[in-house]
């Protein structure tokens, strides 16, 4: 093996020494690729070079041969760096596979069932910036025509955020699928989160409970990006603000709740800051831009609207979303 490489190298070197053409160098470049794929270390390449030179030019002065020995010594650490890199690449691949598995587990764990209610059209899109999602949507519905929705966002992205999110899910599960008031729901989850997480971690959450019979939405917010109300009759957008501190900051936090009456074709638009904090080279994407997109598609089904907004924002940011993106639309039909 080594012998074969030595001969090939000598041949290629000899050709180059005689003609010094670009063609010879190109052959050399291809050969170096082969050396790398066969795990030949840099110090070995120099040793092969020295041996080839010794065969072709026997009569060079001693200093030349010494210089190659010196170069061999110099290259040992480069050879080690190369090997280390290969082993790190392998480890990176292992981590990637593990992350894929974790993402699957998360998907199964956080699965939620989209409620189906007469008179309510729901559009929903949640896209993680990395493999694991730090945004979370949880639906609670019952036979009496209630559709509760939690939209939560854990600070940060990736694995730590995803782990933290499981806690919110189990907190929601513990509410036993009852159509509780937003202020109660947020209070319970706040205590769950506050007990279990680190000081610099926190969660923002919007909770809305829609009653299909009265077409009323009651909502509260724990430091979350305000939901937006679109009024079809007047064709305008307004914020659904409700006072409330982020989850996990203080156990004493209390949460306001408010109620709005929805008319036909009105929409409640819920989102995470991955939607509103988008940036282009020109600066921030203002919320008015997003309102305009929604207005353009206001007569379409809710799912078409959320997809349209996502596609447009992704295009504006050159297909790079820096944060988890979650957008939900409740449309009264």
């Amino acid at each position, binding site marked *: 093996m080594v012998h074969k490489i030595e001969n090939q190298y000598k041949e290629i070197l000899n050709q180059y020494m005689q003609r010094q053409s670009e063609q010879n160098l190109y052959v050399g470049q291809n050969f170096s690729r082969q050396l790398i794929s066969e795990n030949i270390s840099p110090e070995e390449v120099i*040793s092969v070079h020295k041996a080839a030179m010794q065969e072709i030019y026997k009569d060079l002065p001693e200093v030349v041969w010494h210089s190659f*020995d010196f170069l*061999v010594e110099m290259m040992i*650490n480069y050879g*080690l760096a190369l090997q280390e890199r290969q*082993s790190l690449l392998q480890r990176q691949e292992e981590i990637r596979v593990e992350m894929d598995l974790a993402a699957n587990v998360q998907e199964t764990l956080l699965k939620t069932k989209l409620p189906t209610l007469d008179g309510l059209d729901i559009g929903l899109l949640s896209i993680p910036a990395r493999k694991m999602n730090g945004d979370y949507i949880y639906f609670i519905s019952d036979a009496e025509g209630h559709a509760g929705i939690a939209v939560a966002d854990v600070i940060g992205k990736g694995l730590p955020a995803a782990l933290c999110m499981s806690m919110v899910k189990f907190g929601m599960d513990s509410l036993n699928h009852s159509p509780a008031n937003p202020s109660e729901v947020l209070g319970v989850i706040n205590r769950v989160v506050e007990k279990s997480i680190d000081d610099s971690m926190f969660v923002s959450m919007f909770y809305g409970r829609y009653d299909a019979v009265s077409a009323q939405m009651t909502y509260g917010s724990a430091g979350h990006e305000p939901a937006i109300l679109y009024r079809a009759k007047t064709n305008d957008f307004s914020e659904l603000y409700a006072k409330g501190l982020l989850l996990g900051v203080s156990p004493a936090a209390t949460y306001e709740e408010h109620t709005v009456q929805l008319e036909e074709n009105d929409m409640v638009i819920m989102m995470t800051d991955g939607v509103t904090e988008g940036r282009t080279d020109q600066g921030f994407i203002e919320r008015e831009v997003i309102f305009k997109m929604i207005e353009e598609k206001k007569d379409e089904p809710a799912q078409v609207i959320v997809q349209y907004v996502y596609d447009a924002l992704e295009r504006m940011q050159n297909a790079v979303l820096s944060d988890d993106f979650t957008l939900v639309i409740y449309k009264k039909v």
Partner: protein
Amino acid sequence: MSNQSSVEILTEWDIVAARQLGRNVAKELGFGTVDQARITTAISELARNIYLYAGQGRIEIQQLMENGIKGILIIAADQGPGIPDIRKVMEDGFSTSGGLGAGLPGVKRLMDEFKIETIPGEGTDIRATKWLR
């Protein structure tokens, strides 16, 4: 066959002496230039670890002969503080990222066999072998 000699590591210059001893033995055993460079680099790393972390210790070089194959054994022994977390120092990227050089994973790669024993508070004993093929 076992033929040994050793160098006490007290100052940085002793690292050079340990290298020299290792190179002489490697050359005598018939190792080529590349392997000589690998063996001395390994000795350098081990001696430097003693000098930096234990303060003093010993590098011992032995010639080996097993089943007709010749080899070289490097023993690095010290009564220093020991290594509290071996797994960490044997991890790739741990020493290189701090600019500390090839580190113990490097020594392991340069040689054919590598064994480490360390007791916190009592010292460290590292044995690395390379066979002549």
